[in-house]
């Protein structure tokens, strides 16, 4: 038997797990998070797939049922105009979840780009970019978004909301990416690549980004919840999605006006929103634990 064969036999392929398998295994072991993830997927698919099968669309007015409590006809009840609350809630979920996911993807892209550039190059780029980060962290972002959205056209409000929430949502994670990049910059594999004449852009894309990917992924998951929170908050105040379109925020705002006598108009959309946010936090935490078991920031087990 040659040496190489011994070495090869020494590693039993059945026991060797790639990083991806490890992460997946750790994630699957976290049962609440798996349930939450499945629930989120079901809610997301459901809110797009279900409306065609419902007897009412979200704009239909049922004059025979104004402010009806939940019944077999209207599962979530109706509001003061006679609109079916289930159809409305589903429509609101479509908007809110779509905005959440888009914002998370865009802001993660910005965070990764800015963080790696600032951390890798340092110097004036770092100073300038970090000043922008400080500036955006200092202004209360939801308030600034509120200035802009009311003047946008109704049909394009959602586009603007996604853009603005993303522009104001990347700062903290870009700081973390920057910190990690700065420590990667002086590692041997990056220096080796640099001495071999690899262009800076190539180094960032092929050597830095894969190494900061876990932070970016964790952050994307956590931003989904934050973005949904931001959008519903703005819509609640009337600065987000505007009628006739609905989001969970506008539904909750509608519900609160008659909350004391007709609580279901408030409770159903609010409940759905809380479930979505709860699941998003659980999944984000689980991803953090699975991708970065050393940090143990939020779900610390006792290490001795």
């Amino acid at each position, binding site marked *: 038997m040659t040496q190489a064969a011994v070495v090869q036999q020494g590693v039993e392929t059945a026991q060797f797990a790639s990083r991806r398998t490890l992460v997946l295994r750790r994630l699957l072991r976290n049962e609440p998070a798996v349930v939450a993830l499945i629930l989120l997927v079901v809610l997301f698919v459901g809110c797009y797939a279900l409306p065609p099968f419902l007897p009412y669309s979200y704009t239909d007015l049922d004059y025979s049922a104004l402010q009806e409590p939940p019944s077999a006809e209207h599962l979530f009840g109706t509001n003061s105009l006679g609109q079916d609350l289930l159809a409305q809630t589903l429509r609101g979920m479509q908007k809110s979840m779509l905005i959440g996911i888009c914002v998370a993807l865009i802001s993660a892209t910005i965070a990764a780009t800015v963080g790696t550039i600032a951390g890798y190059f340092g110097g004036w780029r770092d100073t300038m970019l970090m000043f922008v980060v400080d500036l955006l962290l200092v202004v*209360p972002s939801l308030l600034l978004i509120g200035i802009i959205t009311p003047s946008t056209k109704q049909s394009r409000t959602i586009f603007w909301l996604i853009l603005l929430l993303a522009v104001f949502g990347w700062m903290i994670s870009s700081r973390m990416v920057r910190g990690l990049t700065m420590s990667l910059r002086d590692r041997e594999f990056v220096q080796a690549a640099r001495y071999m004449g690899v262009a800076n852009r190539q180094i960032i894309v092929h050597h830095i980004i894969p190494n900061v990917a876990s932070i970016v992924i964790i952050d994307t998951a956590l931003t989904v919840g934050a973005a949904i929170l931001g959008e519903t908050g703005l819509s609640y105040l009337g600065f987000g999605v505007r009628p006739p379109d609905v989001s969970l925020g506008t539904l909750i705002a509608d519900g609160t006006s008659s909350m004391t006598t007709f609580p279901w108009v408030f409770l159903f959309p609010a409940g759905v929103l809380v479930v979505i946010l709860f699941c998003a936090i659980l999944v984000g935490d689980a991803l953090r634990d699975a991708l970065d078991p050393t940090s143990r920031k939020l779900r610390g087990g006792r290490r001795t």
Partner: protein
Amino acid sequence: MTGFLLRRLLKYIVLLMFASFLTFSLASVFFHPLDSLLQRNPRPPQVVIDAKAAELDLDKPIPVRYAKWVSGAVRGDFGTTVGGQPVSDQLWRRIGVSLRLVVLGSVIGTVVGVVLGAWGAIRQYRLSDRVITVLSLLVLSIPTFVMANLLILAALRVNSVLGVQVFEYTGETSAAASGSWWSHFVDRVQHLVLPTLTLAFFAMAGYSRYQRNAMLDVLGQDFIRTARSKGLTRRRALFKHGLRTALIPMATLFAYSVSGLVTGAVFTEKIFGWHGIGEWYIQSISTEDTNIVVAVTLLGAVMILVGGLLSDVILALLDPRVRVA
């Protein structure tokens, strides 16, 4: 130390300049305060509209308007509202209202949150720890505007069960409040409870989660074992050595939480009808009032910066290594 403070101060001033310029330009570009005049029917004569535009300086370019605003702002004059009253008239009274809410809410939230988190860490995986963990997760996923309304619903239920108006949920005081100093005080507290709780719950949930994990990290470390083995009681070891060390990361969290509190206060003021700066801000967006919006944003920015500074001070108090550096 003085040099460090001066540099920090300079950076803050530059940041505030940029922040106010950003807000000022955004508001000037997107607000059209003349619309309320133009849409009147019959339309007012052009002379009136031009006069109003000149009064609001709308005929000048934005940098000129901003320069004028800054020269007033450094002297404490934040310009006039669209209606013509000075912004500063209402500003200070409203700041008092908002600060009362934010400071009370964050202090109660922080203290209770830290205690709950530390308690959970000491009793890890016992029933009380699990209850605290799940509850804090749940509270974190309830937005401020839902929490406030849920509290109102609960307060209504309590009021009707007891047959007495225990909790008030509109305004800061009752209009009809009369009588002695004591009844005024009680009236204010009745109005204060729900809004403060709304903000405090949020802070509580966040702090208890982070505190629990920071505490768990600390409890496993060698110096706790050393403290125990040199004869300290468990309680002394945990409080004197454990809690203090585990508080250090909370100082950083505090800096980030201030902006969340400011935003939370906007919703809370709106829902409970408190006439603070958050409520004013929402009003001024609908009346398209640039000066109010800029003044409030500037104040929010100052609060966030002061929060950052405070968190550095707390960090230096807790962590001797920071003081040396």
